[in-house]
């Protein structure tokens, strides 16, 4: 059947896997955007830049940091970066929330978008200034080298790891928000922050931590992406525009919705690459247009 269409099963599976990986990133980022928007009413344009920071810090840790601090043999290993980098980015975001975003909550939502857009430009510009516009490659960590053979297909371990860990993280976030006590406070804060505050809950703290966690998710995706894509200063802004389209398609009403939409759009994009390569970069935008025409509120959206 594949031969009839002139498509090899290898090409199909490898694009499917890339689609799943992209989909996991879309899911992780749109998830963070949705949670942040729910509580802060801010669309976080810096999300893409923070994803870039995740990949950039990972690369810096491996190749640059040692010589900067006078210990050339020092290398921050991949697994350590996977823990450390999201933490650093999370703390940075908390500083951003405390010093800047906090002042805008009483204003129109648009100001939050504009502020984070400006911040994204600053971060992206700084890293382009320091490290140039060219891509840097990050080697696949030793423990994930190689892959497995299924029939005639070769599946690299690292790609399986990325999909697995991203899915696990998505599920964990969903579980945390929908099934735990702390998550219920978060949902209550989304519904009615003033009432929650009146009940004695420290809402500003929840807001700050949520923002930090959402941004850490973006950085985590960035660390995962470093060995797959070229690490460049602009990798985030290219991604964030697609993620915005994903968010428009899914709507920001539901956590599970964001995950499902992100994953399936990644797969659809991957499949377009096999069947009609010219359209792959616009496939998600085309789907966005169709959804806007048929179901303006988005697939999982509440009317707003």
């Amino acid at each position, binding site marked *: 059947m594949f031969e009839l269409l002139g498509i090899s099963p290898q090409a199909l599976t490898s694009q499917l896997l890339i689609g799943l990986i992209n989909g996991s990133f879309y899911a992780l980022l749109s998830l963070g955007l949705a949670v942040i928007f729910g509580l802060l009413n801010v669309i976080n344009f810096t999300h893409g830049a923070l994803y870039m920071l995740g990949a950039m810090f990972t690369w810096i840790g491996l190749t640059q940091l040692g010589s900067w601090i006078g210990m050339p043999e020092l290398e921050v290993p991949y697994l350590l970066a996977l823990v450390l980098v999201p933490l650093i980015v999370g703390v940075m975001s908390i500083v951003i929330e405390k010093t800047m975003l906090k002042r805008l909550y009483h204003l129109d939502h648009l100001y939050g978008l*504009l502020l984070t857009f400006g*911040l994204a430009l600053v971060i992206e510009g700084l890293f382009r200034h320091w490290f140039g516009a060219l891509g840097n490659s990050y080697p696949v960590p030793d423990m994930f080298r190689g892959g497995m053979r299924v029939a005639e297909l070769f599946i690299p371990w690292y790609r399986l790891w990325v999909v697995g860990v991203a899915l696990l993280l998505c599920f964990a976030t969903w579980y945390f928000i929908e099934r735990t006590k702390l998550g219920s406070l978060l949902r209550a804060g989304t519904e009615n922050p003033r009432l929650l505050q009146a009940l004695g809950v420290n809402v500003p703290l929840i807001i700050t931590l949520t923002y930090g966690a959402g941004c850490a998710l973006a950085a985590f995706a960035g660390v995962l992406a470093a060995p797959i894509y070229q690490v460049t200063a602009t990798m985030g802004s290219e991604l964030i525009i697609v993620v915005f389209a994903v968010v*428009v398609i899914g709507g920001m009403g539901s956590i599970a919705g964001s995950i499902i939409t992100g994953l399936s759009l990644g797969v659809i994009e991957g499949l377009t690459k096999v069947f009609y390569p010219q359209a792959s970069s616009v496939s998600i*935008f085309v789907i966005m247009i169709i959804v806007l025409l048929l179901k303006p509120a988005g697939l999982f959206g509440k009317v707003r």
Partner: protein
Amino acid sequence: MNTTALNKVTIIIFVLLTLVPFQDLVYDLFLMKVFCFAIFAASVNLLLGYAGLLSFGHAAFFGTASYVTAHIMKEWGLTPELGILLGVVASTALGYLFGLLAIRRQGIYFAMITLALAQVVYFAATQVPFTNGEDGIQGVPRGELFGFIDLMPSQNMYWFSLAVLLLAFLLIQRVVQSPFGQVLKSIRENEPRAISLGYNVDRYKLMAFTISAGLAGLGGSLKALVLQLASLGDVFWHTSGEAVLMTILGGIGTLWGPMIGAAVIVNLQNYLANLGGWSTIAMGAIFVICVLAFRRGIVGEISHRLKIKL
């Protein structure tokens, strides 16, 4: 009373601008570039300042018109007024299509949809042959206005650009001060109430979006003639961001704000052009400062202090 103050300022500024070719202090090519971006920023302001709609995709209209005009001038050899007219027609049509989609969602989603749609135009521009990909359309001839005024001399081009700016300014003033503009403001202030008063809000938004797209196109077409170049940068999302920045820096919802904002940003970019990432960093920093501490913008602040409408 208030409008006369505005008119006085307008007359003074335009009279001063007509004197530019007779001195050597200000470079006229620089001013022409400012005019193009002023019209572009004013188109964003028409939406943001008066209808409360933030478009992050206006580069699509600016760039499309720029490409169309450049192509027509270079390959078809038509006169510049026709080149601009067709550029504006193209961007207006595109604006109508985008508007139909974007007004289906409000607020923050509206901004994201316009950004995503503009990205489609950007991808299209990288694919279709007539844009020449990375090179863009270079060496666009300015042609002869109405078939007998050669626009190649810088002075002639300056008068023409100034006339276009004046026309755009008068059009915006007319739109804003008309009953149509009042309805737009009511939608910005309280959309449900405008609906309950019987206004077809979607139709007003769509019309505002289409007019705004046409204006952005006018800026883009003029730019193709002034700089004799149409390139991928014109349709890139950074350019959409620039127009929003000019509007905020100058003052949202003021007639002169986008013009002043454009002058400041174009000037800044001239200085920082050779410093790579710094131009982006400076733009981002101005964004942050304006949003945090200077939300009225330059003209907005002046008009607030002097209690006049500008």
